[in-house]
């Protein structure tokens, strides 16, 4: 085992980081190092409280995504201090661990500083397949546990992790459409918070508002075509929105057929009538959440749902998703299931 390493300050939010690296370690070693690092960070002249609002487990992701994961974890900051457990794979027959204690020291006498920790666990594939048994003693009791898939299509190495977690965090867009089928399966067994879904909040509200006036609502049972224009790389967002519309309206969508830059799916309305759902790639920059226009057409009229007042600036959905019971998960499961049906097997 290596001795603790004191790092230089890394910015205002986390002025102090303490690092410990161990090879061939057990969960008990890691627990005792976490305790020791916390005690060492504090002292008689300052109070440092351990702040944890959740357990965050990060499953292995492709190398190209690792930098993004690191940045996101740094950004979590003291807003969502967590017991963060990051899983990685290597070829050695052992578990290696890097334990990082991050502390925002008190600025003045009488203040209490906050600490939280991050543990990087690297192990061989066999152990990774049983990683929930390693993580169980490291999870803080009575806190929600979130399982983060940085790559939406990534394999969850151990099904036991799903049993440990209260919800799953993913981002299916941009370019995330191949993962929609897998997410539909996962959404059937665990609550899924998909950031792409959060970005579509405006479109869902605007669609609901468009059908609020009675004269518009009367058109709904006879809608024949839904046209949706999405931004480049925004097909997943377009599919999620189209899936939500289908699920809410009670339409049964079939698989997409692509021709001339438009993807079309035929859906069956509750009265047996047919709806054509058309998704077309639009221009760049004019949209919101990956979608830039939505139109409902029927024999009796047309309803345009425009971007309207929505702005391109989004609140921090990643941080919001890590709050207890984030609001934007409602309605996701049937929406992603319908989107997956449109994508086909």
């Amino acid at each position, binding site marked *: 085992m290596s001795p603790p390493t004191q790092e230089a300050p890394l910015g205002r939010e986390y002025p102090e980081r303490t690092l410990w690296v161990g090879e061939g370690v057990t969960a008990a070693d890691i627990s005792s190092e976490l305790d020791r690092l916390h005690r060492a960070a504090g002292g008689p002249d300052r109070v440092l409280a351990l702040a944890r609002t959740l357990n965050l487990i990060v499953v292995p992701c492709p190398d190209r995504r690792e930098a993004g994961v690191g940045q996101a974890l740094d950004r979590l900051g003291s*807003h969502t201090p967590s017991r963060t457990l990051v899983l990685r794979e290597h070829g050695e027959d052992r578990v290696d661990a890097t334990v990082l204690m991050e502390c925002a020291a008190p600025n003045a006498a009488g203040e209490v500083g906050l600490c939280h920790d991050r543990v990087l666990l690297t192990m061989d594939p066999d152990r990774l397949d049983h990683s929930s048994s390693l993580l169980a003693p490291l999870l803080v009791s009575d806190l929600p546990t979130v399982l983060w898939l940085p790559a939406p299509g990534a394999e969850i190495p151990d099904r036991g992790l799903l049993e440990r977690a209260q919800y799953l965090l993913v981002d299916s867009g941009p370019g995330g459409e191949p993962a929609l089928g897998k997410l539909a399966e996962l959404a059937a067994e665990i609550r899924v918070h998909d950031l792409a879904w959060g970005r579509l909040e405006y479109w869902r509200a*605007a669609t609901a508002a468009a059908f609020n006036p009675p004269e518009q609502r009367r058109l*709904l049972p006879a809608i024949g075509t839904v046209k949706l224009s999405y931004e480049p790389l925004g097909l997943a967002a377009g599919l999620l929105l189209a899936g939500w519309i289908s699920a809410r309206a009670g339409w049964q969508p079939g698989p997409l057929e692509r021709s001339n830059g438009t993807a079309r799916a035929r859906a069956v309305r509750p009265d047996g009538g047919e709806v054509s759902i058309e998704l077309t790639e639009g221009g760049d920059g004019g949209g919101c959440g990956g979608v830039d226009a939505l139109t409902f057409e029927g024999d009796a009229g047309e309803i345009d749902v425009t971007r309207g007042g929505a*702005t391109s600036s989004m*609140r921090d959905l990643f941080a919001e998703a890590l*709050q207890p019971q984030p609001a934007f998960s409602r309605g996701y499961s049937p929406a992603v299931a319908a989107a997956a049906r449109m994508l086909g097997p």
Partner: protein
Amino acid sequence: MEAFAESLPENPFVEDIEEELPPPTSLVIFGATGDLAARKLLPAVYNLRRGGLLPEKFDVVGIGRREGSDEQFRRHALESIAEHSRTGLEDDTWKTLEPKLEFLRGNFDDPKLFEELAERLARHDADGGPRQRVFYLAVSPAFFGGIAQSLAAVGLGAEADDPTRLMIEKPFGHDLESALALNEEISSAFDESQIFRIDHYLGKETVQNLQVMRFANGILEPVWNRRYVEHVQITMAEDIGIGRRAAYYDSAGAMRDVIQNHLMQLLSLTAMEAPVRFDADTIRDEKVKLLRSVRRYTAAEVPDYVVRGQYGAGWVGGEEVPAYVDEEGVPKDSMTDTYVAMRVEVDNWRWAGTPFYLRCGKRLPRRVTEIAVQFRPVPHLPFARSDIGEVEANEMVLSVQPDEGASLRLVAKIPGQAMYVRPVQMEFKYGTSFLGDSPEAYERLLHDALLGDATLFTRADEVEEEWRIIQPILDRWQADATGPAIYEAGSQGPPEADQLLAVRGRHWRQI
């Protein structure tokens, strides 16, 4: 044979919506170039727009008495937003809002203004389909009745075809008689369901959270009554003086300015029974029931239950400040109350015998609004031979401003050999427990009004009951030559206020 009504399908899309979008709207602001519009309303409109909470078909018609054009009004709005918006100014959002702003000049007592307004709104409808109309009266209360009746006269009141709402802001009358008259005047032009009376305190997160705390946490309700609560203190303290509001304030005073509305609302939300549903009328019915159970004091009882004060010279925030009577525009012999402390008795089964102490004042040491629920001490301490000494009772404090949040005081043992104890606080702060800024109260209230949700607005009967509680006090003061007790600016208020609590070891929480 009776014809079947055409069945309208439900809107299936509303189920999954976190924030509903209002229908197409024309918002008309009377007093659009005034202070309230600049500081609160225009920034609120901008932030709603920025949050994607306004419909695509949305216009603002600003009405003012000064000369002005659309161009000038837009410039004024831009400057107001840049200065007062909680989220700053983002070019992208402003560009979508700017063309929606129009200006109409006119005098509020000129019928031509209202004819022109009706034509303007009809043109908007013709251009983009019918819109609901929301009239915000950011003007002196003296104009409320006249504007309401002029709107009705051109078909924009109770008889309007499209959904129409009238938003007005306190003061709702100067006394009970004028409040009744104002309600009658407005209700002759608009239906009560169309009238949205703003008490901006109700838009604050902590005030809304008060109901969630009480009615969504099972552990609180069993102890929220006379059996477990010793007393409650509701405080709204300000460190500022009256600024340039002498003309209004000297005729109003703290009782009318704060107790009659803000503190009575906080009292009713703290003490009311659980509503069976969270809808506007059910909640307001419960508030009215509570206000009706507040004891009315006779003239002879007033000095025993109510203390009024007026600030003298002193020091606040490191600055020397003048006495109230030396403020610009205040008569030297003014007897206006800048501080009120009162003991409120709620005569119902839940609260009989548990007093509520209400306190508000200007030029106090700091700005703080809070509701402090002091629980009864434990009936018996089993630490007879220890060093524990006196144990403070539990206390729950809901902080409305400046730091919105809640805390619960418990008692814990200090680690060590001896049995020493110390109060510890369990706290939650909105700023650290939830992400993002809380919306400004005006954003929430304006958005609710656009959606037609009156839950956070005050109904006519609430206003009248509030006046019925304080009118006997005002009458007694009117007849009393003694005048308010003078307290030093920057102090905790007049010492006479301490006497109100001086039983059973009660004392005011320090401001």
